[in-house]
């Protein structure tokens, strides 16, 4: 197949590698091009820069699963540096679940490796005639047939590619069967259990017949002012090390959150019928560390992504006596364990409190490459459909799809991953499934994408964030957690939501992880970006960059055909009061917040950026 040495001429000093790798799968060509440094100065990197490239390279109205869609793997200028959490990359494309721009962020080691191979961005266009994978060793890029890989799981794929190239140093991002079979929330999994999880970026990869990207780089990353950079990243790491938030993440992982949400009454339970879950203590961070009746402890170790000095990642294993694996030795291994969103999506929202079943479902997500949030919330809706009699055992391959049935969780996780039986329906996502069975109101999400583990009735700003997130319901595109905990009304939330969306968009464009905000403010990021990158970067410029990114994403969505009508929440959250917890009796105040938000954004009342806003941001 196609083969060739690639090397672009421009070499940018500081942070960026100055090169993008453009792969046209239709033509079977790969070539390196100089990075557009003007865009890099405007959009920084990762999420922002990839959005700009996507916006310029494709027609937003194109079908997400068509060859016209463009799939971008993007690193940031701080990816692969000694800044803490420098292992991030983003996958940006048009999402099949939402029809909107999709931007999924992942850690692990793949992103840094892509950068070390010399590329800021990997841009994949077209569609290969037959399944292929990319093999990237610095300037040498090959598009190789994936005949023996198609149909294999993520774990098998990584092992097979490493063995084929006899290179244990390869870092691999791939899709499992879910991505091959078009599960609309299939993800791209890298390093066995890190994932660009949301919005179905893996389905897009599958639609391109691209099974995997395997990469090893030896080029190294340099920064503008190495001495100052080492000083500021050192200070920032120290600050992070000392922060309480960081200590909790290291000690308990993100699943520490489940107790907080439980107490607060913001923990979506049984498809958002409830906001508190009686089984929390069986699946929380403490439960992961506590031996069960057989003396088996779920948690094995902490694991960091590349460059991360937090290590919130959990490595866990399932009790060998558990029904899910008792006869399946291949799962008697340790692998990626529960984090908050998986604990929520396999736990409260489906009513299951069996920690081994949850861990097994997590293995299925990683192995077959699916978004646990979308899967869990879709399963929750299916359980509600089952509960109200809209579907029966006939539809569900004989499985009793009752809330709380751990076996329903493990079996459906596997069936969905493999695209078998009722799993095919679950693979459509909650919105399409609920519509199919005549109950669109049971879909819990926005723009076709399912909610994360926070209830919008208890966390008002979160609700606004969900409604306005450019990739559909998402908890990671804004950060008003403190404001929401402090004040449970919708008053005064629009401006903080807008501002935090801009902040997060900027952080997502650096190559660093959002979780460092446990200790760092925007000035901490700015100091590191400024020492690494050409140009002068301060807090104000980062906010402005983030705002530019946000607006460009919005413009993509508007061109794709989305409107203000899509900035909404399900009726259940707008009309049915929270049944318990601190927000008992409350509904989401979205109707009040949204106009304020459009105004704060400098958008028209129907949610379009005004000409003035467009001009101000240089869009």
């Amino acid at each position, binding site marked *: 197949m196609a083969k060739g040495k690639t090397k672009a001429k421009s070499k940018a000093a500081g942070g960026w590698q100055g090169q993008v790798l453009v792969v046209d799968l239709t033509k079977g060509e790969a070539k390196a091009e100089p990075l557009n440094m003007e865009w890099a100065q405007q959009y920084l990197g990762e999420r922002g820069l990839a959005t700009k490239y996507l916006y310029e390279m494709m027609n937003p109205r194109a079908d997400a699963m068509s060859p016209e869609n463009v799939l971008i793997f993007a690193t940031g200028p701080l990816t692969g540096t000694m800044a803490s959490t420098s292992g991030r990359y983003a996958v940006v494309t048009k999402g099949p679940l939402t029809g909107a721009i999709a931007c999924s962020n992942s850690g692990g080691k793949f992103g840094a490796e892509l950068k070390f191979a010399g590329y800021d961005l990997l841009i994949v266009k077209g569609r290969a005639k037959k399944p292929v994978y990319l093999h990237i060793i610095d300037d040498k890029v090959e598009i190789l047939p994936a005949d023996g890989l198609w149909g294999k799981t993520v774990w098998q794929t990584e*092992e097979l590619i*490493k*063995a*084929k*190239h*006899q*290179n*244990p*140093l390869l870092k691999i991002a791939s899709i499992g069967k879910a991505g091959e079979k078009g599960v609309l929330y299939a993800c791209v999994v890298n390093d066995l259990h890190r994932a660009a999880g949301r919005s179905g970026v893996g389905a897009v990869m599958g639609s391109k017949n691209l099974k995997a990207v395997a990469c090893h780089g030896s080029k190294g990353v340099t920064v503008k002012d190495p001495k100052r950079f080492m000083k500021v990243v050192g200070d920032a790491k120290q600050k992070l090390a000392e922060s309480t938030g960081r200590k909790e993440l290291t000690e308990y992982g993100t699943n520490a959150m489940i107790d907080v949400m439980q107490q607060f009454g913001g923990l979506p339970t049984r498809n958002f019928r409830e906001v508190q879950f009686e089984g929390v203590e069986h699946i929380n961070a403490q439960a992961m560390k506590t031996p069960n009746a057989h003396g088996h402890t779920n948690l094995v170790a902490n694991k960091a992504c590349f460059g991360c000095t937090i290590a919130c990642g959990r490595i866990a294993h399932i009790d060998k006596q558990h029904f899910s694996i008792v006869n399946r030795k291949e799962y008697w291994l340790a692998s990626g364990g529960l984090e908050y969103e998986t604990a929520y999506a396999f736990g409260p929202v489906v009513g299951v409190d069996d920690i081994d079943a949850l861990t097994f479902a997590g293995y299925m997500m990683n192995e077959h490459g699916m978004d646990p949030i979308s899967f869990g919330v879709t399963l929750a809706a299916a359980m509600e459909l089952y509960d109200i009699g809209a579907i029966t055992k006939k539809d569900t391959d004989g499985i009793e799809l009752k809330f709380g049935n751990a076996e329903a969780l493990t079996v459906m996780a596997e069936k969905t991953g493999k695209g078998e039986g009722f799993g095919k329906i679950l693979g459509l996502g909650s919105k399409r499934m609920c519509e199919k069975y005549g109950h669109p109101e049971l879909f819990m999400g926005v723009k076709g994408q399912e909610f994360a583990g926070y209830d919008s009735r208890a966390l008002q700003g979160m609700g606004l964030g969900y409604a306005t997130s450019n990739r559909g319901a998402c908890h990671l595109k804004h950060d008003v957690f403190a404001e929401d905990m402090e004040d449970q009304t919708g008053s005064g939330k629009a401006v903080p939501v807008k501002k935090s969306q801009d902040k997060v968009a900027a952080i997502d464009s650096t190559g660093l992880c959002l979780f460092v905000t446990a200790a760092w403010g925007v000035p901490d990021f700015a100091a590191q970006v400024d020492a690494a990158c050409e140009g002068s970067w301060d807090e104000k410029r980062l906010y402005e960059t983030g705002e530019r990114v946000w607006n460009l994403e919005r413009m993509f969505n508007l061109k794709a055909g989305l409107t203000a009508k899509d900035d909404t929440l399900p009726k259940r959250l707008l009309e049915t009061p929270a049944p318990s917890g601190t927000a008992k009796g409350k509904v989401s105040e979205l109707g009040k917040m949204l106009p304020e938000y459009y105004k704060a954004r400098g958008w028209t009342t129907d949610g379009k950026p005004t000409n003035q806003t467009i001009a101000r941001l240089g869009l």
Partner: protein
Amino acid sequence: MDYVVVGAGPAGVIAAETLRRADPSGAVTLIGDEPAAPYSRMAIPYLLAGDIEPAGTHLRHGTGHYRAHGIKVVKGRRVTRVAAKSRVLTLDDGAKVKYDKLLVATGSRPVRPPIKGIDLPGIESCWTLADAAAIARKAKPRSRVVLMGAGFIGCIILEALAARKVDLTVVEMADRMVARMMDRQGGDMIKRWCEGRGVKVLTSTRVEAIEKTKTGFRLAIGRRAALEADLVVCATGVAPNVEFLKGSGVETEFGILVDHGLRTSVPDIFAAGDVAQGPELITGKPEVHAIQPTASEHGRVAALNMAGVPSHYRGSLSMNVLNTLGLISSSFGHWQGLPGGEIAEASDPDHFCYLRLCFKDDRVVGALALGLTQHVGVIRGLVQTGLPLGPWKKALQRDPHQVMNAYLDLTKAVP
């Protein structure tokens, strides 16, 4: 006590230094037959490639190293006779040297096949600094060079010749390149690699005769074909320098037979390095391992025993590492496999990657690697320690590239 070391290669130099440390009052004499300061043949290709200056080949740097260590160096003299009973050496200028303990570390010399015209003036070996200088003079860019022999030494020279941008043809009698350190699969990959870089490689090809032409040489290969060359470099093998021992009573086979103490069959005569045929690590059978690590180990053990410090040498492990135009290959121990043992291979010919592990019972006894540069030494670690593999044997059979993980896990080298 008079210690005499014959041969100023690595084994000889290390032995002389070790003698000095082990017996500070003894007299140490080092006799070498070349005019230069003791140097390493290993470095000659890099000299030829122009990477280093002649001084860069020296085994020891700085002036006065040997004097400072109280080692008397006799340069440019060859020992012609050993009178074992009287413990006297005769040099080629007739001088006599008395010894109490003698170390023979005379190494080996290149040998040429019995072909008509093989000794024509201008056909070069590549063994000494003088040879390297001669080749360097003649191997000009675009000159037609025929390299006879694609063994280990041939391949090392090949790299240096290619660096001089000559029009290069390699002729090898065996069915593959580096036949003594690579199996068919690995040898073929190296050949294909070389061909991809503009070197003509003729394997299973014999040079029948060489004749002089107006400008250079014509080499008859097979019945009809012939190669024209401006320069012929012969790297067809080496033989141990043992002739001068005739009549000394020292027993030889391929090389000088030595025991686990590097003692020869004659009291107070020891042998080390390329000339010695000593116990092999795994089988214990006497073998000649003409490699730097063995020379270094031999030299040290022999010297200690000469100085009366009892030392036992477990045995030598054959290993080689080769850079053929950028393709790095290595071999360890019994890479052909041992009877009754298993073999695990992983290969990716398209990317010139190959790893072969040979097991015997629960151990790794040999390996070949192509394209592997990181942590490759750990294969020696596995072979040398004879580490029982336990569950890792299966894992290694599945994926030989797990060697580093296997080693780390099994040794608990890091707790």
